[in-house]
């Protein structure tokens, strides 16, 4: 996760990067208190730097070898990564092979690269799961909630605000606390693609796959809602070039209310309130600028100076208006044409031609 991204940057170590790194490790204000180097006297600075180096390298060491590198050796994954598991039945005194509940089979590759890969299973799940057979009572223990770690932080992600927005959403309104963050964001495998990728198609696909994992999957949809699945394609019949839209914009673009201050609005609207106006996106003042294209990584892509990236960013705006130079040229040519016609007409009137 965070550590692995930062690892490569260590040779270019500087204060701001370090501050960011610490915020990523644990987005709590208290870390920063250790790191207010501006307020610390010069002679203390070295001590802090040495300490920080120690922390960074020790974490890097952990990260270089995550808990999930060798699934066969991992005490949980040796069972929870395959279709079947074998254990010693001490009552009958023989080796018994059983089928694993498919919902409890982990994708070990995604787990290793997921945003929480620095944590071991028992960091969130009860340590008592280390024993098998698992005790029935530990199932009743509540799991930590996302906000237990992410809440109260002032990271750019604004989890508290996200939660406020989420509570207005149709998901929360209908299913209440049963609809947790993990219904969309798989805790084990989540990747912050939208803030790290500069490929729009990749961001769109990752985001939409979260929605479609239920809304296009009869079994999953039924598990949460108890109802049969709505037909995505039929419902969006009104949308021209449906497939292209699905590939190039996120469901969120039309199905959420844009919220200032957070990257993705989590107020998923009722289907009746979804945007159904082409002009909302296909204009210069497109709402996409405030949603999909507000990511810094995508903006940077458009600002890297090459013409192709500048223009490829606004391909949702119709016609030449997406290229400001052409728009200006068009206006100039028109003015010249009209001025030319006016002068010619004036001469014709003067010479009565």
């Amino acid at each position, binding site marked *: 996760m965070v550590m692995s991204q930062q690892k490569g940057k260590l040779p270019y170590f500087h204060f701001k990067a370090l501050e960011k790194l610490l915020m990523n490790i644990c987005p709590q204000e208290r870390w920063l208190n250790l790191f207010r180097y501006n307020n610390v006297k010069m002679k203390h600075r070295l001590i802090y730097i040495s300490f920080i180096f120690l922390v960074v390298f020790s974490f890097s060491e952990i990260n270089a070898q995550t808990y999930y590198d060798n699934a066969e050796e991992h005490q949980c994954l040796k069972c929870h990564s395959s279709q079947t598991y074998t254990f010693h039945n001490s009552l009958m005194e023989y080796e018994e092979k059983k089928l694993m509940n498919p919902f409890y089979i982990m994708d070990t590759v995604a787990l290793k690269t997921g945003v929480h890969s620095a944590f071991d299973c028992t960091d969130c799940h009860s340590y008592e799961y280390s024993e098998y057979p698992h005790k029935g009572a530990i199932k009743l223990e509540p799991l930590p909630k996302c906000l237990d770690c992410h809440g109260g932080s002032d990271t750019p992600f604004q989890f508290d605000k996200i939660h406020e927005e989420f509570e207005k959403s149709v998901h929360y309104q209908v299913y209440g606390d049963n609809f947790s963050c993990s219904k969309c964001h798989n805790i084990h495998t989540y990747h912050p693609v939208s803030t790290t990728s500069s490929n729009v198609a990749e961001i769109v696909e990752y985001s939409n796959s979260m929605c479609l994992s239920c809304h296009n999957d009869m079994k999953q949809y039924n598990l949460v809602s108890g109802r049969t699945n709505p037909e995505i394609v039929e419902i969006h019949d009104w949308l021209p070039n449906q497939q292209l839209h699905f590939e190039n914009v996120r469901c969120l673009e039309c199905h959420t209310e844009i919220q200032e201050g957070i990257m993705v609005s989590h107020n998923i609207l009722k289907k009746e309130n979804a945007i159904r106006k082409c*002009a909302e996106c296909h204009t210069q003042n497109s709402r996409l600028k405030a949603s999909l294209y507000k990511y810094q990584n995508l903006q940077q892509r458009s600002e890297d100076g090459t013409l192709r990236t500048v223009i*490829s960013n606004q391909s949702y705006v119709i016609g030449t208006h997406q290229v400001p130079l052409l728009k200006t040229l068009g206006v100039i040519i028109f003015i010249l044409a009209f001025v030319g016609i006016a002068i010619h007409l004036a001469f*014709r009137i003067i010479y009565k031609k």
Partner: protein
Amino acid sequence: METNNKIYFYPLWLRIWHGINALGIILLIITGYTMQAGNESSLLGFNTSVNIHNISGLTVALNYLLFVIGNMITNNGKFYIVKPKNFLKRPMKQAQYYAWGMFRGKDKPYPLSEKRKFNPLQKYAYIGVMYIFVPAVIITGFALLFPEIIIETVYNVSGIMLTAVLHSVMGFFVFLFLIIHLYISSIGKNPLGNYKSIINGWHHV
């Protein structure tokens, strides 16, 4: 057919084609600009503009076939053939007449007759519009109507975006042509003469 200084320049099929083309292109220009502005509060809503644009586009495209077939089976096509001799000198001469000669009472350098339906400048403009810009707008417009057939990226630039820009640039030139065409048509024996000709078919020389 020539009587009393009148030539039957515009046969019925050509006038029908011209009428449909004119109406269609005017609608396409209006709706094209409404869509580019994308303003919901404009006279035509976005969705209405899209519908009118699609229908007019298809009509103009089909009408273009009438133009091509008409030119092939009648002798109207020959008026669009350019002679390589004095390729640039001839239209320049006509331009000079419009800019200078006509005010000085000079004779028309290329008076129209049964054999010469268009003056050189007119011919070049018509060829440019009817054989370059309009076909380009039709092809790109067809591609935008079925965007899944467009190449996804060309050197990392969105293919749809390139097609859309080409479509509106070509459309822009058609619009420019239309304005100049309408103005130049008012030059003649009397300012309304040419407009009447394209309705009744008879051109005064």
